[in-house]
């Protein structure tokens, strides 16, 4: 029975209205595509965070890393002694970054010296390479290397084993970078350009991931030297030998590492740097000090940290991407409901022939599911294509805010594909649920009541209590605290639910407003028959009208809300940039191209830069990555008095007391960024303890400042203190005030000629660059808005098609009364245009609420940035004109098409 029913009922329907079916599938596909594209792009951006050592080691069992600063090499013999009986390999690692050099013009111009690249406007975002330093001799002991398909060393061609020890440092590149390696690699490392000889390609360890495209491997001591970190290592990785009691030994290694972290460095490692034999365990129980010297983690733990770091950002994008699908859901509901209404007679006949109501219901659901499946499948293809574009946008944001990623392409992953397909089917079946029930409930007698309006959606969409209740609930939900995802990441669930409630309430409100608008337009009825017909329909809107308006409200509300968020953000960033960027020139290592780049200026370099005769004053800033409560953040050292004196801070709340800015009195005081305050729940007056190589320091928060450049948060103290704590005089960036009369561009060209590895921005170029990066990070949200709007407008057209199909009798009557085709089209245009107008009005009103939720709840809870509310009037007006105009136009075309419909109904 069912197959026959499906064939005769559903298939025939699809065959008879192929255009409508195709459009529905397309809309669903678009919704699924946006959702899938964003998820794929997110996935690619996250999976591009590689624990790079895995490429070489397979997977390490444990990793230790200093909570701040680096570990001295002296810990290595200490670790060997402590773990002597556990059959564990100990691999020290140093990691840094370098960037590709800025493109230079012709060699001739480069030779011309000064101003070779001074004229090119500087930009961030050049490719960042991860430089990984491991002991290339010792890693041969790893099982993963011994079974690797390719060797690190090949004799002949300068890549042989002992070439490793030659005078020239060698690098190995990822096969993804170039299948056949180039002869050398040019990089900017810290403050100078370097040319490194390429020895070969990085062999892939057994069970290890393929080397990511930006990975560059060097022998550990060579990288130490290259980045000026002799005697220091970033982390130590532990790989247990297989065999007896592996799990017990793994646990024991972790236990001893944790215990040893709390012990003072043992005398043996402190006095004799490299004792020839260490066969004893530390003799006495060492003195525990208050802070661990290192933190013990696993590669999986590091990946998880990277994932949670970007989780809020990715979740927000995913939710945004659901708008198109949500609008699509409205439309499928529309279309199926329309079909049920139009085919009532048919259903009634089937019922009177004794077909079971459940079978009919199932047939309709099956039709919805097939629609969803087709839309989902098409959506996957579109989504995969879209992801290739989206991945760059997502990658840029991740790069700017979180960690270096070089992701270029998104793979279609099965979980995402399944989810996309499921989203399509679920949305479709969900939308088809009520129409299917309505179909099943059609009484056999219905055959006599042709074309009676099916008031399915209409019932909800005429409910004032629902509209007001949803909005009230939404307002209440904004009070909810964020959901803690762990690792310092919080998800504003309440905010998202509030937005959803707002959209729902707004949609119902718009539906309710249609007859009111119709009444308001009554005076215009005198202008002609088309107006009268249109107003007549608007006074008694069907569920279909109401649904179309609601779908439009959803799309407009979100698009305009996002526009408000972006505008507010931009205004705040502008204000911050204006306040924070006061100096004439800003200098940093040209190697620092992403959030995690750790390229810095050597003391000699920044002193030379600051000593330029045109420089009136130099302000030095040093940043140190830090792990606090297991979350990555930054400790900054700067000249607070100087920066504050120039209004360089945008205080959130009251400014700090005077002593906080005086290096002689501000030991123990800190300024924290607003994001830091949010992430670590630290307020003004609270104390926090930061780990430093010189031991933990307890700091009291003197004030909060705005910093839109760093989502991870910053603790800022006077540089006099960080220089001492970290025993380090490198600069992350310096800003120069020039003497009156000096021309910034000229000084910049001067400095660049002497220091080609330094990136120099003038005040105006840095401001422009900050705003460019800012807009770039929002580029994907623009795309999502446009797609959502497009779907909604198409949806309006589709609704009107449904309406006209429902009204075939009326159209026939109108034609019989002498209505011309253009008059019918005009009537439809007015009907659709007014719907669009109504939806736009409600949508814009709603967008202010949504904008407020986005700014003060969703953004604040996810990222911790305070933004000043700013509505982009011109942009919103343009949006309104566009939607209303398109609404009129599309409706006119639908009307023309409808006017030509044959009178008999063959459906």
């Amino acid at each position, binding site marked *: 029975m069912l197959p026959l029913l499906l064939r005769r009922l559903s298939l025939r329907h699809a065959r008879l209205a192929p255009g409508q079916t195709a459009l529905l599938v397309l809309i669903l596909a678009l919704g699924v595509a946006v959702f899938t594209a964003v998820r794929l792009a997110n996935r690619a951006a996250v999976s591009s965070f590689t624990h790079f050592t895995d490429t070489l080691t397979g997977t390490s069992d444990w990793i230790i890393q200093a909570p701040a600063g680096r570990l001295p*090499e002296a810990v290595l013999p200490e670790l060997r002694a402590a773990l002597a009986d*556990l*059959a564990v390999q100990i691999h020290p690692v140093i990691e840094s970054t370098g960037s590709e050099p800025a493109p230079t013009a012709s060699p001739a111009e480069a030779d011309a010296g000064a101003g070779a690249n001074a004229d090119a406007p500087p930009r961030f975002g050049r490719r960042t390479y991860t430089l990984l330093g491991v002991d290339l001799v010792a890693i041969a002991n790893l099982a993963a290397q011994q079974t690797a398909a390719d060797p690190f060393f090949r004799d002949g061609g300068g890549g042989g084993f002992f070439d490793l020890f030659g*005078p020239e440092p060698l690098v190995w590149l990822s096969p993804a970078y170039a299948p056949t390696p180039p002869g050398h690699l040019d990089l900017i490392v810290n403050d100078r350009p370097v040319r490194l000889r390429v020895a070969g390609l990085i062999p892939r360890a057994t069970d290890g991931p393929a080397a990511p495209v930006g990975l560059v491997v060097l022998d550990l001591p060579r990288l130490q030297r290259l980045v000026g970190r*002799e005697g220091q290592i970033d982390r130590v990785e532990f790989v247990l030998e297989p*065999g007896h009691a592996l799990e017990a030994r793994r646990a024991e290694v972790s236990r001893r590492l944790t215990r040893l972290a709390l012990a003072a460095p043992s005398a043996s490692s402190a006095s004799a*740097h490299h004792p020839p034999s260490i066969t004893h365990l530390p003799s006495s129980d060492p003195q525990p000090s208050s802070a661990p010297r290192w933190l013990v983690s696993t590669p999986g733990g590091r990946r998880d940290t990277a994932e949670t770091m970007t989780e809020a950002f990715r979740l927000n994008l995913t939710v945004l991407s659901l708008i198109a699908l949500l609008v699509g859901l409205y439309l499928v509901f529309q279309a199926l409901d329309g079909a049920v209404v139009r085919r009532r007679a048919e259903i009634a006949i089937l019922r009177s022939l004794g077909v079971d109501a459940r079978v009919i219901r199932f047939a309709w659901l099956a039709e919805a599911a097939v629609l969803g499946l087709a839309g989902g499948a098409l959506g996957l293809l579109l989504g995969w294509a879209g992801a290739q574009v989206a991945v760059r946008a997502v990658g840029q944001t991740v790069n700017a805010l979180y960690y270096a990623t070089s992701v270029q392409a998104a793979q279609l992953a099965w979980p995402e594909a399944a989810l996309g397909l499921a989203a399509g089917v679920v949305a479709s079946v969900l939308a088809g649920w009520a129409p299917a029930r309505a179909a099943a409930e059609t009484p056999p007698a219905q055959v006599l009541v042709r074309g009676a309006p099916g008031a399915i959606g209409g019932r909800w969409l005429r409910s004032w209590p629902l509209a007001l209740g949803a909005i009230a609930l939404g307002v209440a939900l904004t009070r909810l605290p964020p959901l803690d995802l762990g690792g310092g990441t919080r998800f504003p669930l309440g905010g998202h639910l509030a937005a959803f409630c707002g959209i729902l309430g707004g949609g119902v409100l718009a539906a309710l407003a249609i007859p009111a608008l119709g009444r308001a337009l009554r005076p215009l009825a005198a202008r002609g028959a088309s107006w009268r017909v249109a107003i007549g329909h608007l006074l008694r809107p069907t569920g279909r009208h109401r649904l179309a308006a609601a779908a439009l409200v959803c799309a407009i509300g979100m698009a305009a809300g996002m526009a408000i968020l972006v505008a507010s953000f931009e205004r705040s960033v502008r204000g911050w940039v204006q306040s924070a960027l006061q100096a004439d020139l800003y200098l940093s290592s040209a190697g620092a191209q992403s959030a995690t780049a750790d390229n810095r200026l050597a003391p000699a370099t920044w002193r030379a830069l600051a000593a330029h005769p045109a420089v009136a004053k130099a302000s030095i800033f040093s940043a140190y990555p830090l792990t606090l409560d297991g979350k990555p953040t930054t400790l900054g050292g700067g000249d607070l008095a100087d920066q504050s004196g120039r209004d360089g801070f945008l205080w959130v709340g009251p400014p700090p007391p005077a002593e906080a800015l005086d290096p002689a009195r501000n030991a123990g005081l800190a300024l924290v960024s607003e994001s830091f305050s949010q992430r670590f729940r630290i307020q003004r007056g609270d104390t926090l303890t930061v780990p430093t190589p010189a031991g933990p320091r307890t700091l009291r928060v003197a004030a909060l400042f705005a910093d839109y450049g760093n989502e991870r948060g910053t603790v800022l103290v006077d540089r006099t203190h960080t220089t001492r704590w970290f025993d380090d005089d490198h600069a992350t960036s310096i800003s120069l005030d020039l003497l009156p009369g000096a021309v910034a561009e000229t000084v910049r060209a001067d400095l660049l000629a002497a220091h080609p590895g330094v990136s120099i921005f003038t005040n105006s170029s840095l401001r422009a660059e900050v705003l460019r990066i800012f807009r770039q990070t929002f580029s994907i949200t623009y795309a999502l808005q446009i797609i959502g709007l497009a779907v909604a407008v198409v949806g309006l057209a589709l609704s009107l098609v449904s309406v006209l199909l429902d009204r075939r009798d009326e159209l026939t009557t109108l034609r019989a009364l002498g209505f011309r085709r253009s008059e019918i089209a005009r009537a439809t245009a007015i009907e659709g245009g007014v719907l669009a107008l109504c939806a736009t009005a409600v949508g814009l009103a709603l967008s202010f609420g949504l904008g407020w939720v986005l700014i003060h709840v969703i953004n604040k809870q996810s990222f911790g940035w305070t933004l000043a509310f700013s509505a982009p009037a011109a942009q919103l007006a343009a949006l309104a004109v566009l939607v209303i105009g398109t609404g009129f136009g599309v409706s006119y075309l639908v009307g023309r098409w409808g006017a030509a419909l044959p009178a008999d109904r063959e459906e």
Partner: protein
Amino acid sequence: MKYQPPLHFLLSVFCAFCAFCGQPLRASEIPLRTPDGFAVPQPGPAFTFPRDHGSHPDYKIEWWYLTGHLFTADKPTPRRFGFQATFFRSAAPLATAAHPAPAAFGHDQIHLAHMALVDVATGRFLHQERLNRAGWDAAASTTTLDVRNGDWSLRFIDAASEKMQLVGGIRADARFTFTLTPAKPLVRFGEAGYSRKGAAPTAASYYLTFPRLALAGALTLDGVELPVTGQAWMDHEYSSSQLDKNQVGWDWLSAQLHDGRELMFYALRAADGTLDPASTLTWIARDGTLARAPFLWQPLTTWKSPHTGAIYPQRIRLTTTDPESRAEVVFIIEPFHPDQELAGKLGGVTYWEGACRLLAADGAELGSAYLELTGYDRALTVLR
């Protein structure tokens, strides 16, 4: 073949067994340095101990090579094991090592180590190799015997009595700490420890051996600690020489007889299958006196390695003359187990090094031995 340098270790093992060959050279013909700048062993060495038990980084190649037999205290039949513990040092080319390197990650010396253990009762054979640069995780003292590679080490615990401690293991499966005490004084092979290796003036090494060390300690196998005693043989040799072009490999034997004497034998196999004239058998008397003797080396059976496909001789008949009785004696060298092959990944060379029984022709057990067979996997042409 991933790492080239360790080849040189085995290459020098090869050279070591040429210790007695060639004609006497006048001292004036012997250069002080090899063409690549390493020190050349000179005749009439004046060793100072314990310094010369330590490392000699001026020379290109050096090793401390221990083999031995272990017995548990189980009654009535103790469990028996054979072990090998070898520490190699190889100097990097002087030119590449000229620029400075940090102490923790040196690049002047490379340290390779091999450990192996065979359970005589079950035939279970464990082995592991380890490669490190001189630095925080591998080192060799230049003042006394103290070499280390990861958590493996060999050092004097009392230099005066030449009592040493060996700490080794094979991954997580076996771990051992042995105290080794000379039961017989140090032997200097060649001319008072200067051993010639071939016609080339630079072809020589310094060759010092403890032919019999009393061993006591603990072997932890699969987490179970077994107290053990036994005896071991230790070679210490250093040189800067290169391999002869005609050779494909060598067979080497150290045997400790129950009567208190030892014998050391090596045969250099030429490409045409003949034994090099430099192949030698040396008896060590109870008082440490050395005596060379004629020999006949006759492999009786072979074993094909399932790991590499190499075919190794197994039961070997060795016929020689007893320097005390002047009578001909026949020994049968019988490996406890055929599979004692070290298929090296780091060294790039596969060889067989195994614990054997030393039997008389009538099957009576006369002592224990360690047999080394190289160049059977493939000719060691890569060493030339």
